[in-house]
């Protein structure tokens, strides 16, 4: 009997193919939208995680000022190179600390020029940020001390300035100085914030301070801590040390901020997840609207088939059998819509993931939930028309024209 009811519903669908397709369109779009949103959202979250992992898992970033983020606002006391050295020396569990200052500068080689980020730092920076030298070498101790005119460049800069030419040993101009290229960085791709991490020129900090910025300031300090060490403890120790070095009294608030990767990850994935949830909620509303569409068509169908219902009742169909028949039709319709929606969602998320360059993460849970939800929509919105059909008076239904 169960199978018969399903077969009957399928036959009814086939009789009105166009109408059935239009009816389930709402469900198709709703289910597809929910799954696409969740899939792309999870892909984006995964991407953020991967990028943060590639930043180095045990990274702390210390910036002056109270606010989050690496932005330097006026009035904040900048760091000095000695601060980074003090952290390396005095705080336990710190592997390395790199002072970082950077500025956007036009780099020139021959008749090529390219606006890029010039960063003054030391060799620790390369290790802390999980980068490697592809060819050439790091800075030597003497170069770092003397502020030699040498630089290590990223792949984007190399491509823009040198094209197919050999870059090592050549000299590029950064403002007034002419720097010898001593190393090439391994490619790293886009960062979480969408920045090209290969668009970079690294010079020794002393070179940067003396010849580019003209002061002894350090904008940021990157710190890497030992694997397994508690970042909370390290943060506390650094805070104490920096408060002392920056002469803060007990009542003063910190005038610097320490961010760890976990915090950055939380911030960024939090945003992505919130956005995903929001968009999915909007998509879920369209599922609901799809359900109302089904109810509408089912009501029309009941009116149209009044005579048929009359015949069935006269022949001895029980109320609940007619109810089940119409309910089954609604559920088969909406489930069918759900299935099409799932297929549509998988195809478009594959395409979209490729287009947006986020990994494709298939989530079976949300697929099953979306499918069950679409069937539930059929039950909920099919019940009212089905009950209407079942309660018809057979005599009047038979007379209905």
């Amino acid at each position, binding site marked *: 009997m169960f199978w018969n009811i399903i077969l009957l519903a399928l036959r009814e669908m086939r009789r009105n193919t166009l109408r059935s397709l239009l009816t389930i369109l709402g469900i198709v779009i709703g289910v597809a939208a929910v799954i696409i949103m969740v899939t792309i959202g999870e892909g984006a979250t995964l991407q953020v995680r991967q990028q943060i992992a590639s930043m180095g898992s045990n990274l702390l970033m210390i910036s002056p000022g109270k606010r989050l983020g690496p932005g330097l606002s006026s009035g904040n006391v900048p760091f000095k190179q000695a601060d980074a050295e003090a952290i390396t020396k005095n705080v336990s569990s710190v592997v390395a600390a790199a002072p970082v200052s950077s500025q956007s500068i036009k780099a020139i080689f021959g008749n090529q020029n390219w606006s890029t980020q010039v960063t003054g730092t030391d060799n620790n920076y390369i290790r802390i940020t999980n980068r490697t030298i592809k060819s050439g070498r790091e800075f030597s101790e003497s170069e770092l001390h003397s502020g030699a005119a040498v630089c290590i460049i990223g792949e984007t800069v190399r491509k823009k300035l040198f094209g197919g030419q050999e870059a090592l040993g050549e000299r590029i101009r950064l403002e007034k100085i002419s720097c010898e290229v001593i190393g090439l960085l391994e490619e790293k791709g886009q960062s979480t914030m969408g920045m090209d991490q290969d668009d970079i020129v690294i010079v020794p900090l002393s070179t940067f301070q003396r010849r580019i910025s003209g002061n002894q300031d350090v904008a940021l300090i990157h710190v890497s801590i030992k694997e397994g060490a508690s970042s909370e403890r390290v943060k506390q120790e650094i805070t104490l040390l920096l408060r002392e070095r920056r002469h803060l009294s007990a009542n003063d608030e910190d005038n610097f901020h320490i961010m760890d990767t976990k915090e950055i990850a939380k911030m960024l994935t939090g945003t992505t997840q919130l956005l995903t949830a929001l968009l999915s909620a909007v998509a879920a509303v369209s599922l609901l609207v799809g359900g109302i569409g089904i109810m509408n068509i089912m009501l029309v169908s009941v009116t149209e088939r009044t005579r*048929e219902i009359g015949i069935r009742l006269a022949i001895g169909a*029980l109320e609940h059998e007619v109810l089940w028949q119409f309910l089954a039709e609604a559920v088969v319709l909406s489930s069918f819509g759900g299935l099409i929606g799932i297929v549509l969602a998988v195809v478009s998320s594959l395409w979209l993931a490729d287009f947006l360059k986020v990994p494709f993460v298939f989530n079976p849970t949300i697929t099953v939930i979306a499918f069950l939800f679409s069937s539930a929509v059929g039950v909920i919105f099919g019940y009212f028309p089905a009950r209407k059909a079942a309660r018809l008076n057979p005599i009047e239904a038979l007379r209905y024209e």
Partner: protein
Amino acid sequence: MKSDSIKETLKEPLITFQKVTKIYGKGQAAMDALRGIDLTIYEGEFLAIMGPSGSGKSTFLNILGCLDTATTGCYIFKGVEVSKLSRRQRALLRRHFIGFVFQGYNLLNRTTALENVEMPLLYRRVSTVERHRRALAALEIVGLKGWENHTPSELSGGQQQRVAIARAIVTEPAVLLADEPTGNLDTTRSREIMDLLTALNQDKKITIVMVTHEPDMASYANRIINFRDGLVASDKMNRRQ
């Protein structure tokens, strides 16, 4: 043939109506459709119910078919007092004992003759194979062998009514109720349908109650009842032509 002798040969009363009334509406607008029907129908009878429109014959047939309930009085079907049954119980009674044939055929559109005939068996939970076999047999009885896979729109009026009759008899009902079965057909087709009903009555011993306003068609029955103003005006035996 006298009425008494028929009662002796067909001893078992199938249907008994005792002072059955039916009132539609309430108060001032109330309309008496039936005003006290006393009637007994025996197994194997072929009844024709005649009467002008508004005389209550359709109401009578609806109550007989358990589609409607009497306002007062007592309707006994196979010893069961139908007046006391629930809507669900009446539906089950229809399912197991009553076959309907309507004036407008009332077949399901875009559904083959075979599927139409199989439908009552579906509600009786008959297995697919058995359903198929019985529906084919019923179609053969009504002379539609070879037309199984045609939909109503591909069949003539007479053929559609044959499908409807096949649908009514496929469950081997205790009584076949026909409401103006020839109302939409021309004389030749009407005769064919009446011959078929007569054959079913004589060969298959199916009790038939038919409402008609055509004396020609009523003459096929072996008992003719005339309704007038919600009452039985006459109840006569009829020698078949």
